[in-house]
């Protein structure tokens, strides 16, 4: 019983192609396990649900993030699936092609994961520590502010700094926006903008 059937043959002739089909008729039916077992198990049954908001457009659809791990001490959470929140009054469970693919944003291969630094004239980024990056940036900001801060214009007190610009991110939270506002404005910065124009 080592004759190997040619699949090309199977496809070509209608007669020979019926080979499998004859098995049932020849009494070979019932070889398979119960069909119910073959349906993919429902993968969300035991996942943790977290309510969140789609970060893309301003409809701000409600989403449910399904994650692995129940937040117990030894389990590390990881979002495995994203679906629309049926309770949300605007999207009522629906999501657009961007929202439906949020998982691929969360798990994107091109996410940043470590602070990188590119020295003047260098051809590539180098990984650095947070302390290095934050200290260096603080130094650059202070030096520029000290050099270019304008306290007076004639008699007028103007207290402005216009040589370093700041751009806010319009997908961050209001709370991030507020702390950014405080940090930036307290330095007297005026070159300050966000994505509202684009």
């Amino acid at each position, binding site marked *: 019983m080592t004759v190997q059937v040619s699949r090309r043959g199977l496809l070509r002739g209608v007669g020979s192609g019926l080979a499998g*089909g004859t098995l049932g008729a020849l009494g070979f039916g019932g070889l398979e396990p119960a069909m119910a077992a073959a*349906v993919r198990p429902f993968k969300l049954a035991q996942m943790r649900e977290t309510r969140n908001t789609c970060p893309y457009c301003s409809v701000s659809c409600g989403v449910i993030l399904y994650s692995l791990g129940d937040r117990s001490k030894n389990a590390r959470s990881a979002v495995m699936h994203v679906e629309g929140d049926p309770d949300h009054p605007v999207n009522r469970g629906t999501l657009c092609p961007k929202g439906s693919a949020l998982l691929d944003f969360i798990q994107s291969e091109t996410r940043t994961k470590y602070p990188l630094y590119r020295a003047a004239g260098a051809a590539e980024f180098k990984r650095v520590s947070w302390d290095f990056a934050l200290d260096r940036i603080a130094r650059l900001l202070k030096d520029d502010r000290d050099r270019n801060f304008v306290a007076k214009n004639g008699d007028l007190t103007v207290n402005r700094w216009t040589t370093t610009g700041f751009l806010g991110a319009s997908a961050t939270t209001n709370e991030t926006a507020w702390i950014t506002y405080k940090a930036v404005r307290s330095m007297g910065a005026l070159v300050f903008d966000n994505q509202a124009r684009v």
Partner: protein
Amino acid sequence: MADYSSLDIRQRSASTDQPPAIRSHMEVAKLIDVSKCIGCKACQSACEEWNDLRDDIGVNTGVYDNPHDLTPKTWTLMRFTEYENPETQNLEWLIRKDGCMHCTEPGCLKACPSPGAIVQYSNGIVDFIEENCIGCGYCVKGCPFNIPRLSEKDHKAYKCTLCSDRVAVGQAPACAKACPTGSIMFGTKQAMIEQAHDRVEDLQSRGFKNAGLYDPAGVSGTHVMYVLHHNDKPSLYAGLPNDPKISPLVAFWKGGAKVFGLAAMGFAAVAGFFHYVTAGPNEVAPEEEEEAVELDHEKRRNGGSEARPH
């Protein structure tokens, strides 16, 4: 009590021992209202995400359709057609979500030679059970809608499952849940037919006098139905068959040819099948596999043009 999430089997491929129907079941259906569809591809996106499929990143070929065709990893696809209506002179952008129609008389199932590789549940869903699939491509041939696709990777056939895993726990398919405009609805077949009638009435009031429900009789109806503005010309919608029927070849086998089939069936074929179930399909010689796939592609191309009148 009727149960639409039942996984009781109504039909299975290549089997004579159909399970007896004791319980009564509600049939489910997906209604795709083309007139509400904005072609956003949320259904494609949700389908890939839910089913853990990621197709290749392709290229643009001068159209919005991407990927360009159904594949083993793309089970549903928006097909875009620009149509200048000769009666109104209006441009219409007809956008149809393509995918398995879950026929009441499934050509794929009738054609499938491998026991239990294709099943139809009592709720009407037609599912491919990949572990029973022998990769012969008969389902491709048998499908009047040109839907199943054979994977070159594992030599199994794939298509939309109507999210049988979700339906089994009482959830709507991923595409239907995601659809932003409610163009894809899911429910009992009866409810979907009723909804379709409302929609047809609305469309007719807006000047689409041939609006109607696409639930083709040639396959005894489907569990994925369309509301079309031009139900008199389904083929306008990227070649949706005007009158789909199971291929005569399949009908031939299911009819009087069974005896012929049994008689003509060589010993080798049976042996071949055993080779499959014992050693697994990957044992097939690679060059033969290639040829088979090649042939299958050729058939699909041919089948495609048959199934898509222009």
